[in-house]
């Protein structure tokens, strides 16, 4: 090995190793995480859950799945876990895999184990998609608010936006012609204004233009007020309302949970951006002539992502809980999909006859949510340099 090393021409003689201990980001992350045993446990359960969900997707789908969650065996209903099926009654095509009901059967004689591993994927997608939507909106709005926040919105823009909004309102109350006209007028004004700005330097000053170019508020204020408005709604109640009014579908649930939980991410990103915006590396990038979008996504977002990641991990946990609560109220993911929430809520009617129908999904949800929470908290400690120094 020694012979292969090529000496760097500028390297001072006698210095063999780099001066600072070099550690890749992942290695450092792992070293810090390892101190928190609960977080490591959470991380492993998180990975295990991910693998099970992925395996469940493949093992329970297709024309002849390995574990079929959809076979109804009315003669074999409510069998306890680890009971073997009576082979004489069932045809050979309805016998469960391994000739065993690993986690028993439900009130229709469906294999609970198959339904659980199918539901794992659904719960996982609900959690990830909902949080993905929330984080995307959060980064976008928080980024705009933190980076462009100081730019002011002028009175004429507010008026134009109001006109467009009135137009939308009219459209919604079925006054199509007037609504359309107002909407187009409003948007056209906003678009033309931008173009006008670039072409023409200074329009003539009259009393009207002076009134119209009064600065009303900054973009930051606008977005933060919007966040305040959204925070006024009791979140579970809002989700419940929207989900109950919309047609039942798994996608609606993901989208609704996502659209009602982005406020935290927005605030985090904004706070980080406000402190990053004035730091030297951003000034340097700007001095080099790097474009705004590249500065935001390449330089600032990676530095601002830590608190968002933490809140996203915990957000997935709470999205899974919200989904199960919705299923419990009968508004969750509709029947062909099995989720842990609806296995549990179907099973509650048989809590004394078939306790496994309640306890298996209940404990599964508990363990997964717990592992997400523990991992999220561990992540917070690792990613927060202030806490790191103290310990």
């Amino acid at each position, binding site marked *: 090995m020694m012979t292969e090393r090529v000496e760097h021409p500028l390297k001072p003689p006698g210095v063999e190793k780099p001066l600072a201990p070099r550690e890749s980001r992942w290695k450092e992350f792992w070293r810090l995480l390892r101190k928190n045993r*609960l977080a490591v446990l959470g991380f492993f359960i998180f990975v295990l859950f991910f693998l099970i969900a992925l395996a469940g997707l493949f093992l329970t789908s297709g024309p002849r799945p390995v574990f079929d969650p959809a076979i109804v065996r009315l003669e074999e209903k409510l069998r306890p876990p680890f009971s073997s099926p009576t082979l004489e009654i069932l045809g050979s095509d309805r016998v469960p895999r391994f000739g065993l009901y690993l986690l028993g059967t439900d009130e229709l004689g469906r294999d609970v184990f198959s339904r659980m591993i199918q539901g794992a994927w659904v719960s996982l997608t609900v959690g990830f998609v909902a949080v993905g939507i929330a984080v995307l909106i959060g980064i976008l709005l928080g980024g705009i608010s933190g980076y462009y926040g100081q730019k002011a919105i002028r009175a004429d823009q507010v008026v134009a936006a109001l006109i467009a909004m009135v137009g939308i*309102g*009219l459209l*919604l*109350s*079925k*006054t199509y012609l007037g609504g359309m006209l107002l909407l187009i007028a409003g948007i056209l004004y906003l678009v033309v204004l931008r173009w006008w700005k670039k072409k023409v330097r200074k329009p003539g000053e009259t009393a009207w233009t002076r009134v119209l170019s009064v600065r009303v508020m900054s973009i930051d204020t606008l977005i933060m*007020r919007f966040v*305040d*408005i959204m*925070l*006024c*709604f*009791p*979140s*579970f*109640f*809002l989700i*419940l*309302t*929207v989900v*109950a*009014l*919309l*047609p039942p579908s798994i996608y609606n649930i993901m989208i609704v949970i996502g659209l009602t939980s982005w406020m935290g991410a927005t605030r985090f990103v904004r706070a980080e951006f406000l402190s990053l915006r004035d730091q030297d590396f951003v000034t340097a990038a700007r001095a080099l002539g790097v474009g705004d979008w590249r500065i935001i996504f390449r330089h600032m977002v990676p530095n601002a992502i830590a608190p968002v990641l933490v809140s996203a991990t915990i957000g997935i*946990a709470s999205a899974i*809980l919200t989904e*199960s*609560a919705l299923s*419990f*109220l009968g508004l969750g993911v509709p029947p062909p999909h099995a989720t842990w*929430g609806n296995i*549990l*809520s179907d099973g*509650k009617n048989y*809590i004394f006859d078939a306790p496994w129908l*309640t306890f298996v999904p*209940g404990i599964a*949800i*508990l363990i997964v*949510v*717990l592992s*997400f*929470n*523990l991992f999220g*908290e561990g992540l917070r400690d690792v990613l927060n340099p202030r806490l790191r120094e*103290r310990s």
Partner: protein
Amino acid sequence: MLSFIARSSIQKIITLFFVSVVSFLVIHLAPGEPSQVDPLNPKFTPEMVERFRQQFHLDKPLYVQYAYFYRDLFTGKTVSWKDNLPVLKKIIERFKNSLWLFVVGTLLTWTLAFPIGIRSAIFRGGLYDRSATFFSYLLISIPGFFFAYILIIIVVSTFHVPVIDMETFGMGESSWYRWLMDRVWHLLLPSVLGATGGIAVLSRYVRSQMMEVEGQDYVRTARAKGVPEEQVHYKHALRNALLPFVTMFGLILPGLIGGSVIIESIFAWPGMGRMAYEAILARDYPIVLTVNFISAVLVLIGTFISDVLYMVVDPRIRL
């Protein structure tokens, strides 16, 4: 101070206006209409539907409906579409029931969370701290309804007391003592369930706040000059750690409404949450919107109170 109050009241009123618009739009733009709730009912002839729509202004454009609705709300004349009872009267009636749960739950939360959090901050890293941490995560992560069923099974099979609904049916003749015990048993489980999440979160928060303050210089100084440990913890550290919690008094206000749809439906508790849930299912828009509006008002009042309290308590803050 006065200018702050004036400024923030104006801001809050504007916010409230937008909240009212958004909630109105969300509800009215969802597909389907309240007049179509029961299309198979033979009594629901087209003429009936038409009369229904006219009576509740459903045939008017949306902005007219909006104006009508909020005019009725502020003059207190809103009626439920389902039974024509005044919405405010219904809400107040249910509110009294929810208030019990809220008061007991909040008391439990605040009296238990502080000792737990302070103790685990003082003995940080010890067995107590670690188990408290683990249990609080457990309580945050457990699905509420699953936990409710476990508790119901345990309580009913060990103490043999009925716990569903507000009181046992037909208790009219019994002595006041039995009546009281019956009410207490019925109140206990739902309020404990409502409090568990709060205890877990709040005690974690107390712990981290305590740890933050214990790392400050003045605490070290106090220790260095020989102040007894007890006094360091409870006089120097705790008093300063309490600051942010003063503001949380304002933030518990919204819990009055958003509370507990799930707990109230499991325990058949005739409270606000359940009424709102039933109203959503029946598309009884006046009730849904009124509950939403009241809870938005409570959130805004809560944040206002917490801002003012913060200013009163912490002289460094000038809003």
